[in-house]
């Protein structure tokens, strides 16, 4: 059998491509506006907002599965309207500091961060770096930006 060695599924290669693209986008955007520590809304935040809205609004017994997940993540029940993207620089800086402290191995060192307010806690993550995993680390921080839990996504 002839194996087309195009490596259609080699994540290492794709990660490399994705990394280059990310750097290029960051560099390009920097020339247009001042760099904010808060990452802006995009497909990733849209997905996470939708996901968190499901979790915070879940009730027993209608959605005990999501309630279990919410408990595991240490996220309080809340109204879906309390799931919002954070754009406040100070909050994002605090979240970024907590992220770098908890996930020290990222290279390059992140300078921007996604921060989602989910009720009284924050969900914080950075686009995945490195090749060791297909999952990006996500942190659950309390209102004081202290670590509560982490998950991969």
């Amino acid at each position: 059998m002839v194996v087309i060695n195009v490596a259609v599924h080699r994540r290492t290669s794709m990660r490399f491509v994705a990394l280059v693209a990310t750097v290029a986008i960051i560099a390009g955007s920097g020339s247009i506006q001042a760099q904010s520590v808060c990452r802006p809304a995009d497909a990733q935040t849209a997905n996470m907002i939708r996901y968190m809205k499901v979790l915070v609004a879940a009730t027993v017994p209608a959605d005990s599965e999501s309630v279990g997940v919410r408990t595991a993540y240490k996220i309080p029940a809340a109204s879906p309207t309390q799931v919002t993207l954070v754009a406040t620089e100070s909050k994002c800086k605090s979240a970024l500091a907590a992220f770098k402290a908890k996930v020290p191995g990222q290279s390059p060192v992140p300078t921007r961060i996604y921060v989602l307010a989910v009720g009284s806690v924050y969900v914080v993550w950075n686009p995945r770096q490195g090749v060791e995993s297909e999952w990006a680390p996500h942190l659950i921080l309390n209102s004081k930006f202290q670590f509560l839990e982490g998950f991969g996504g």
Partner: protein
Amino acid sequence: MKDTPQRSGAAVKLGLAVVLSALGCSDGLTSLRSFTPEVRSVFGALPSGIIHEVGAGPTSAAPDGGGRPYAATGAMLIPGTVARIRASGNVTLSRDGRCDPQQPPTYSSPITPHGLADGSGRVLVNLPGGDPGNWAGNQPGEYVMHFNGGFDTAISIVAGRKGIVAYCGLPNEPASIPEFALSGSTTLTIDILGVNVAASANTVQAGQSIRFTPTSVNFSRTGQILYFFDTLTSHPQIEVTSCTNLLECDYLPAQSGQMMACLYNEQGYPVCGKSEQINVIKCPTGDTLLDNPVFRSALRKALKDSKADSVPTSVRREVGGYAFFDTTGLRVVRTETASTPCSVNYFAPANAVLIFHTHPFNPPEGLSVPDRFPSNCLGGLAGLQYDVNSWGGPSPDDWRSSVNFGKPAYIIDKKRIYVTNPLVSDSTQWRNSTKRFDWNTRRCKW
């Protein structure tokens, strides 16, 4: 789409003409007429479903000599083969008058293996046929023994054994003085008795029955039909149903396994066909690839190879590969080259119809205790995995791989299987586009 390995449909036609040397009463001194009885196993066009193996047997004379003429079958049939033995031909026995008058020459009944004399043999076949009346008795002179149409059915035939056709003296007590010479020929015809079983399907969804239609080969079926079923071929077979004098029999298999039908022949012995693999698809998904038993088996093995239950979780490994179709059906190939508990590098050729890999973790959902990623998965953070029920199971990388390759990605974790749609490139649609199928939950367990 072929979804099961093809059954052996080729009729096997084996013929064997084993020419055996015969022994006269070989004392090395007496002038003996040797004879060369032809012992031939005749196998017609045997249908599939019959297990048999025939090879040339030893052609040397039976070594124990002692005045017993032998004709030995050279057919080697694997144990369990059911055969009908028929003998025909004429054997002339010339006596010099020194045969033990108390042990008249006779033909062997039953035919016994050569090894019987030394205690190593087993009774192979019964041959009560022939025509003893053609023996003139224990009188000096020449005797002709006719074998015409005598037959019986063997229950167990052991490979490599010989059968005695004629002798002088008892089988276990070879005469010490040779007194007979034997001439002529004897043909032994061995008809393999078998059963062909046509099944309406080899793969059915749980709750569906299969109709079996057995056909006897080389014998007339009498009495009931027995069906045996087993989940593992090495296990003792269990009779699951029987149909009396019906041509067809419906059976509702509860799980995958081997199915075999047995019919009774004229002598009352059960004759069985070859086992057939029956696949019962539990929790059918409607996805023809995922409902393929070959792929399901490969997915389960992949997860097992991922050491998905191992602790610490850092020893777990994602594994992956692809599947394609060839003339035998769906083939699954594993191609992982490097992997961690939370990543895998693998590749697939252009003819792949799908790619797959494992997520060897228990997702944090419901009341179950979730597995925590080892720290090397999340840059030093030992965290939980995405809730796959809400999110969808495949990671963003998994989705990108599927979209870039243009084939669906199947991801199995410890509870579910997730399937991507390679046509969906918009990441905001990935969650809703992921198909999820339970395979190890309370709702469904393969």
